[in-house]
């Protein structure tokens, strides 16, 4: 089976559990440090894990766009390789311009680390097969509030780019279920083509038997399915 590259910027700190979670589902994964951008071309898909790339300086994910590996990630996206960015990985993807919108500080003004539920939408992406399911996953972020202009959000809806929304365990998307002030409870989006997805919740932290749920497996399985 083809290999998945797990991108590690200075300050990324989720790369080990991400690699292990991919391997748990039978995939081959290798960590690609930021100073080896050429390795991006050798892998079939990319997982951008969470953490604090470049110390979150300036804005979360901003510095990554000035790097060589940033250029390689954009190239991989253009080639149609499946890409999943989680948490800080999601922030990096928006800053790279691969995903629309921005992630700003939580309206609660606090760092939030807790289990939440997301409702998977019908979308144009590789998570389409999970549409209509509710998953329980952890979040852990300070800047996870999704922001977009009204017009651009309308366009995203028309292109079915909304992938997941924060919901109650019942799957109902209500203001009460919104942990961070995200626009319309958005927790995950895709690009127009559907090969690049950003998610604030962490699928790689809901895998092991000792995790509260193993719902992350479903997302990672769909991600792996996209590679074939």
């Amino acid at each position: 089976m083809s290999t998945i590259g797990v991108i590690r910027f200075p300050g990324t700190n989720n790369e080990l559990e991400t690699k292990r979670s991919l391997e748990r589902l039978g995939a081959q994964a290798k960590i690609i440090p930021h100073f080896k951008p050429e390795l991006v071309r050798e892998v079939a898909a990319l997982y951008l894990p969470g953490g604090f790339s470049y110390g979150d300086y300036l804005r979360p994910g901003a510095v990554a766009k000035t790097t060589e590996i940033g250029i390689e990630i954009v190239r991989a996206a253009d080639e149609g390789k499946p890409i999943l960015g989680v948490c800080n990985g999601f922030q990096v993807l928006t800053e790279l311009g691969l995903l629309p919108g921005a992630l700003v500080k939580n309206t609660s003004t606090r760092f939030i680390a807790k289990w939440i539920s997301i409702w998977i939408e019908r979308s144009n992406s590789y998570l389409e097969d999970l549409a209509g399911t509710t998953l329980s996953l952890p979040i852990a972020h300070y800047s996870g509030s999704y922001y977009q202009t009204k017009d651009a959000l309308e366009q995203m809806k028309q292109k079915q780019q909304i992938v997941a929304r924060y919901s109650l365990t019942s799957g109902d998307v209500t203001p009460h279920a919104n942990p961070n002030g995200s626009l319309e409870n958005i927790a995950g989006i895709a690009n127009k083509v559907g090969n690049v997805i950003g998610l604030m919740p962490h699928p790689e932290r809901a895998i092991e038997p000792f995790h509260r749920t193993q719902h992350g497996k479903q997302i990672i399985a769909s991600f792996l399915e996209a590679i074939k």
Partner: protein
Amino acid sequence: MQNTPSVQVPTNNLAQNEEYEGKAKIIRVLDEQTVLVKFKDDLTAFDGVKKATKKGKGHLNAQITKILFSYLQDKGIPTHFLEQLDDTTFRARKLRMIPVEFVIRNYSAGSFVRRYGLSKGMKLKKPILELFVKSDALHDPLIDPNVAIELGFLTRDEYEKGKLYSYLINDFLSQLFDQIGLTLVDFKLEFGIDQEGTLYLGDELSPDSMRLWKKGTQKSFDKDVFREDKGEVIEAYEYVYRRLSEINDFQPSPPEFMINLSIRLKPGIVDAEGAVVKRALTRLGLTQLSEARVGKLIDLKLSATNVLKSLETFAVGRTEFLINPLIEKSEISFDV
């Protein structure tokens, strides 16, 4: 209150092939983008009250302007000069001129001495920038930059960039004139904007628009010779031209300048940090506080080896990296 500026620059509304004759130059519109600038032999002073014609003066000022504009252009200061056509004429970019003159002073002289009751020839601690309304009818009054911006004579961005260019030009020219034993006492600049909105140095740079003293003295090599009847004005201009044309590829040491960028979240974007600061200040007793927002400041120090190139690269870096235009806005100011 009227909103349109009462001061109009006559060359700004010329149609193709139309001509405007000023005190020292004739401007003719060649096409949408270019004009012809012809230097006259006429000399005027005191808002046109004192007049004379000196044969060869137009030629000398055209040549001196060309040398100085080429020198500045090489350092990345955009000027309107395009090419020389003959002894007294060059082709230049067509600009919408800003009706405000930028004056830099290194030593006290002229109206500065009269206005503040100073003695002439005092070295100023730092170069001083003054703005004047370009209007003979009003006798070119001094204007506060904020008033000039409020009245719509120029925008804040144009003022900031004009200020930056003025100080850098002062540094470059002072070093150049020092090479030929002259002190740049003060000078006047005029800026204009082309159709793309780029700011250019326009008009001329000659002994008509600056004061030059022999180093260590107050002996004039500029229009003061004519203003104050201190000798043969053409000889002074000839001296400046001859000495400038003898200089070969002088490389000044580049001055440094600062770009100060202030970044704010756009209105409507929730500012979590601001909300926490507001609550904290309220706890400290600032109960009237209705809103607090927290932004960022970025200070960059650059060497002016090629000013325009640096500014263009910075402009890209600003929108593509330093700010996220979706959620943030920024303001730039410069310091030299």
